[in-house]
């Protein structure tokens, strides 16, 4: 059951990325290019997602077990620290460089774009570097 739900949720998430245009790096970069011809679409994607999300998470946040009886694992850390901001800046730099973030990259890979394969391989390598660094004491437990 968990597997079917996970697959279905990934599918709906991916369809949302395609419908919204966010699977397309050129459209994401059109949002990030404030000084060029600016495409505000990404802001509305976030607004739509957050509006639906806020209603749903308000319900989810009050539960101790999920509808399928699994423990709720929603992060409770609300603190802002240096590592969060530095990580965000590094991620944003990579995002702006190619127009890919993790979800759209997997969708583009599924659509058969080889460039997405290069990006995803490098991204997994980056994650592995972080993981390896963690074994020498530099890592930490992530929220998600």
């Amino acid at each position, binding site marked *: 059951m968990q597997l079917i739900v*996970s697959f279905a*949720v990934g599918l*709906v*998430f*991916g369809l*949302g*990325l*395609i*419908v*919204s*245009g*966010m699977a*397309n790096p*050129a*459209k994401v*970069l059109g949002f990030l290019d*404030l000084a060029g011809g600016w495409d*505000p679409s990404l*802001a509305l994607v*976030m607004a*739509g997602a*957050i*509006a639906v*999300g806020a*209603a*749903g*998470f308000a319900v*989810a*946040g009050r539960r101790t077990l999920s*509808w399928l009886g*699994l*423990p*709720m694992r929603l992060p409770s850390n*609300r*603190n802002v620290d240096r*590592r*969060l901001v*530095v990580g*965000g*800046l*590094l991620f*944003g730099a*990579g*995002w702006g460089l*190619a127009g*890919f973030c*993790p979800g759209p990259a*997997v969708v583009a*890979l599924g659509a058969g774009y080889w*460039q997405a394969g*290069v990006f995803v391989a*490098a*991204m997994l390598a*980056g*994650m592995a*570097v972080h*993981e390896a660094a963690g074994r020498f004491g530099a890592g930490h437990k*992530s*929220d*998600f």
Partner: protein
Amino acid sequence: MRIDWLQFTPWAALAGGALIGLAAVAFALLLGRIAGISGILAGLLRPDKGEAGWRVAFTGGLAAAPFVYSLMSALPALRIDAGVPALIAAGLLVGIGTRYGSGCTSGHGVCGLARFSPRSLAATLAFMAAGFAIVFLMRHVFS
């Protein structure tokens, strides 16, 4: 600032965003988890016992989306201008940055903001600011 009205697709953006929000909410309500894609992918590298299956299934669903979409309508073409060196540098930065910063556009930008988390707001402001800055440098300074 000049809005590019030809590229701006407000209704598709809102509809697609609502689908993304729906997926995130379904994940939380049914499985009690946050649909944070960088975290889901990272957990595949060295999964704990019983943690690999749902991650593979979720990733498979994402990757299957273009095929399922193409059954209903013509899949819009994607435009990827970055060359191989930029793709590799971008991937490394996204991989390290999302782990160091505990999340990406989905975990912080959608789920975290929808839960009014100050932590996710700070992360979102940071990655947006860096994205704006890098694109400005690439397109208007070093172009």
